[in-house]
């Protein structure tokens, strides 16, 4: 399990196999506003990166997160 998918699986309480690029708040009921905040803070902590508010709010699905973490220098394969 990659670090990123582990965070999503733990925070959203879903199986790792369900974590696909299209995963989004629209198709995942546990991806609510509270868990969205938890996802941001956990990702920042684990990858030692920082998002600004707009970046975090622009995230529409799991693929956006992958792109964003990579752009900040985080290793999404780890």
């Amino acid at each position: 399990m990659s670090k990123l998918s582990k965070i999503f699986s733990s925070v959203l309480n879903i199986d790792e196999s369900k974590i696909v690029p299209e995963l989004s708040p629209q198709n995942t009921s546990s991806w609510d506003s509270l868990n969205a905040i938890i996802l941001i803070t956990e990702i920042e902590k684990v990858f030692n990166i920082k998002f600004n508010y707009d970046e975090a709010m622009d995230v529409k699905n799991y693929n956006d997160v992958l792109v964003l973490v990579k752009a900040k220098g985080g290793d999404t394969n780890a």
Partner: protein
Amino acid sequence: MDSLTYFKLANSLPELNPGDFSQKIKVNLLTNFTDDILAKMLTGAFINVGIYPEFFKVPYKQYVVYLKNKDSKLFSAPAQVTYIFFDISSYMPSELAAQSGEEFPGLLEDIKDYCQKQQGIVVMNSFIRPYVSAYGNLYGDNPLFNLVGSFNDRLQKLAAELPNFYVFDTNQLIHSVGEDSARDMRGMYAFDIPFKTDFFEQLTRHWINYALNLLGRVKKCIVLDLDNVLWGGVLGEVGVDGIALGPTYPGVAFQNFQRALLEYYERGVLLAINSRNNERDVEEVFSQHPYMLLKPQHFAASRINWKNKADNFLEIAKELNLGLDSMVFLDDDPVNRDWVRQNVGQVLVPEFSLEPEYYSKTLHDLPVFTPFNLTAEDKLKGQMYSQEKRRTSAQAASQTFDDYLKQLLVKLEISLNNASQIPRLSQMTLKTNQFNFTTKRYTEKDIEKLMQEGLVFAADISDKFGGYGITALAIITKDPGKEGGAILDSFLLSCRVLGRGVERSFFDFLIGQAFAAGFKVLSVPFFASAKNVPAREFLDKLGLSVELETNESLIRRVVIPEYLSNLAEPESITINYEKKI
């Protein structure tokens, strides 16, 4: 434990069966910010220690309404623990700090009302001192700084006034982690979550310690390795003169660690030794080394030998009548730590491969000892265990056990419904596990109420070697369903007084008092717990008839006049009872 694990555990809550948990807790949470993350963290932390939590969380920004309205769900939700955390900062205006804090005294009155209506305990965080402001370094000129100071003073006064209100020192925690790693600026402005997840996690660890105490799960004993823990170097190799202990580094770090351990001893935490060494060599250090602060009398039990440390643990637990889960083990050797973790897993074994200058801090950072107020008995406890060692040697020298008991001159000073003993009596119900018939946990307020409605007997026990303090407690309540009937609601004795015939004398005394109070039948309930086998053994020896027996509960019956007519006079124990009405 990291925050992700706590979130994961919290997510599992809906799938968990409360019946699978041996302990449950009702929690009320009251804050002035978005506290969903804090609540989730706390949920995970409780599940992590095997406690099923039930929360009532005051809705966002409703805290004033819920405190002012005495019919609110906050007042009607009975909680064993209520956590209150109001944040004031120099970054965001707060209604609490508005108009120079005029609202605060009224709010404090509401909190007081709430505490008086709750049977459980209320833990409130002290206000965080604003460390930065437009006033620069001139704290005295910063009105908010002064306001927070006066609020915190008022909280302390309230804590002195109310038996179930405790102040958690938030500034101590902020001081330890640093304000920068505690505050979350983006969270504060964007979501009204003014703290980082890591800070919530740290806070949670301290908060659940209050609950663990209430549920009788406090650590009571620090078990120590010797070489490279109490002194530097391996005694067997370098000898008494070669060990590092004294005024210069690294000896000074070891010496100050001993000083810290002494402070734990003073506050009633027991110390014990579990070390691979030659006992003669260690005795030499104790008697000859000029910088040893710890003396043999500070240790309640010692195992200095070449046996395996796990077996030594079992022996220490037996000798001190303590559960393994009430012990903490400090050893610098990773192999020993691992061995103990694998073989006596209930013992808490923190990482301890450290430079000696970090020893004291590591111990202080463990939030596992009681956060509650000290009682006189706590301060005496370490001393009493060491008197127990002398008693055991008197036992070895005397001929029969009966002779020994006579020589001991055991004395019980019994009092009834004595309000000055309430803190100690509550503490006894919280901490006593092994010799406890019903293991009912009571707050100070509960005890106060029981004194008004029933008979609360407490015994101050002593013998020729010294006093044990108040170490026996029994509560008799009227049985509403039975004419002339009473119930032995609680019967418990501290383990350190067992085995002297005290439990029988105290029980017989109670039957006499129940008779004097006009009762004819006493029901004696017994609820089995993981630890109270010694109490069950005693109960069985009394040979009482069975009133009710199911899988969950057992009730024995004492027909009082009959019991008293068959009573033999105890020879070796003196009972003094002064009835104060």
